[in-house]
């Protein structure tokens, strides 16, 4: 059971994450978009979207800090356990609240505005449900366990297990002792990654940073372009007609 949940499932999810993106990129460039609905509803989005996105940046950064940076690195850098804990909890709470507020507003506008409700796809609903579940679990573990509760040092267990997956040395026993919220959040995180390539979240990988360096006006040459005198339209049409009738 431990092996299945804490080794097989993460690797499976990562495989789906990678293969899903390759598949989507190759097959569905046209669907690779933010799928903006600002045109249809602006009042709630104007507040909710920046809150959600900035909150998400903070939360992602926090996860990177907590999961990828081993505790001996921060100790070597002279950051005390207490200082780290305070930063992590408060940083996590603030960005988390921004994320929750933003997400709530974004979900609300899907219900409040009939125009937006109409363009909401099934995949959007799945994504919103998954996001809501993940954010709730995350907030419970940050605020409920670490801020108000006794606290749990995930850096010695979850973070080590997480890094182990990428070093190809997974240690499932580290996870079995973690509190249930943390277990669910970690599992959910991997499932969320597996869902990622099939949602509008793919727009994250198209963050247009190259815009900062490219020239303003983009010129492009039409593909092909060998100068040959083309036949007159009627000629082409007459030539194409037998082919059309043959196909019918």
């Amino acid at each position, binding site marked *: 059971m431990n092996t299945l949940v804490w080794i097989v499932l993460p690797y499976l999810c990562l495989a789906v994450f990678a293969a899903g993106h390759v598949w989507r990129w190759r097959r*569905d*460039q*046209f*669907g*690779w*978009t*933010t*799928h*903006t*609905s*600002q*045109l*249809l*509803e*602006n009042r709630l*989005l*104007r*507040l909710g*979207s*920046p809150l*959600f*996105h*900035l909150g998400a940046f903070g939360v992602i950064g926090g996860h990177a800090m907590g999961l990828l940076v081993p505790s001996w690195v921060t100790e070597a850098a002279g950051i005390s356990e207490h200082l780290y804990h305070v930063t992590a909890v408060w940083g996590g709470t603030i960005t988390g609240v921004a994320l929750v507020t933003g997400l709530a507003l974004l979900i609300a506008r899907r219900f409040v505005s*009939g*125009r937006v409700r*109409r*363009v*909401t*796809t*099934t*995949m*959007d609903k799945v994504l919103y449900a998954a996001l809501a579940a993940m954010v709730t679990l995350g907030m419970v573990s940050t605020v409920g366990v670490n801020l108000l509760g006794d606290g749990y040092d995930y850096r010695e267990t979850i973070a080590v297990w997480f890094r182990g997956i990428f070093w190809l040395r997974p240690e499932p026993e580290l996870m079995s002792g973690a509190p249930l919220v943390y277990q669910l959040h970690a599992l959910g995180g991997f499932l969320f990654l597996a869902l990622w390539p099939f949602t509008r979240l793919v*727009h994250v990988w*198209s963050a*247009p*940073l190259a*815009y*900062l360096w*490219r020239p*303003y*006006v*983009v*010129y*492009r*040459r*039409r*593909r*092909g*372009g*060998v*100068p*040959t005198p*083309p036949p007159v*339209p009627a000629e*082409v*049409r007459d030539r*194409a*007609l037998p*082919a*059309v009738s043959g196909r019918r």
Partner: protein
Amino acid sequence: MRIRAQVAMVMNLDKCIGCHTCSVTCKQTWTNREGTEYVWFNNVETKPGIGYPKHYEDQDRWHGGWKLDGKGRLTLRSGGRIKRLTRLFANPDLPSIDDYYEPATFDKDILVNAPAGLTDTPVKRPHSALTGEPMAVQWGPNWEDGLGGTHEIGAQDPNLARMPAEAAAKVRFEFEKTFMFHLPRICEHCLNPACVSACPSGAMYKREEDGIVLVDQDRCRGWRMCVSACPYKKVYVNHATGKAEKCTFCFPRIEAGQPTICSETCVGRLRYLGIVLYDEDAVLAAASVPDERDLLDAQRAVFLDPADPAVQEAAREAGMPEDWLRAALTSPVWRLISEYKIALPLHPEYRTLPMVWYVPPLSPVLDAVGAAGRDDTDADDVFHTIRELRIPVEYLAELFSAGDADVVAGVLMKLAAMRSYMRARTLDGTVAGELLDGIGMTAEQVEAMYRLLAIAKYDERYVIPVAHSKDAAALEAQAAAQPDCSLDCAGGPGMHETAATVTRFHLVDGDEVHPGRAGLSARRSDGRLGLTVNPVRGAS
């Protein structure tokens, strides 16, 4: 010098009767799809008026186009690159659907299926094409046509606010006092496009061969910066696909040497299409001239004289085909813009160097001359009256010359002089020499201009060289191979191959319009398309 060719258009507003044939044929060709109900690549507006989307010319509000920064450098009005990226999450300058209009559809079933012998007449009601709910139609792509509401909102026209107050006071909106003219608008296919410059993903581009500005549908990621950056508001969000779409200048037709669909079907024969040679390296400097009123001449100076042997030589060196050079020589657009100098760009002060130019409307002048008890063949009388029109020259100047009334007056005088000259020549057999002197044109020039404007032969209005590409024949064959549609078929030119996630361009039997999205229309038992809304109770 980097020499390029641009397919450009001139519209003679004097002849536009506002019949909307261009809008309708364009809509049928390009935007008759879900997600683009509110989109008009070509729309005809009534001026004075606030237009579509509402107040689009008010750049203090929408921040479209370019401006010069404190150091005199050209920057987008909506801010620099970093500022734009910080606004990706919510674009504060994006018009909402209500600024365009909420698209409506009607349930005609209630008329068709009305039982015989009703004592009251069945009435079809508008339903929102976005939600299916009953709605009141409150705006459209030309709501102000026939002076609809102009007496109430016409005064909000942003051009009036910029005019000198005494001239603005001359614009009347009351019925019987007012005067209006029509302004057909398509994408300007600018030399210095703000939309392309604002596109974060680099999906928008200007074609090197013919200058047509397009959106790469596969690369567009829906950041919607192009929509707000375009001062003409001619880039739209398709709310079904989440991608930007815009006027394509009917490039599949242009490549085959045919005029755009709006030009082809223009009843008034007021559109002219041709190529203009220009120097790409001169574009930035021209768009950056400090005084807005110098922009017109600066843009004209970017264009290259196709009759100049040095230009021809440079063009050949750059690999331009001979028939393109010949087309440039006979281009009606070049003649109207640079030879007769009667065509003017729409809002040159946006600094985008637009490539759809307009011959300003003259219609009321000769009537006004008569009404003032003057002689319409007398040069002085005509020229005087031009300054006293119901649509003040200052208003046209706000549209076409960054407020320089002398430029517009000069164009109107040329047009008035041409009419008077031709009238004298045809009716009396006399040559009104003083009219020609007044406008500084020769008799040959005036008669050639008259032929181009008034006779307006098809072959002279549209001088479009075919694309030099092995694709051209293939594109034609592809279009011809589709028996029921030419351009907007699935996989057709410029359109994306129909994939599972993509809106189809035609409704076909059994098609759901968009996955995950309840279709507003559905195939009925008799095979026709009907609404899925219940006309009495709203959504069924």
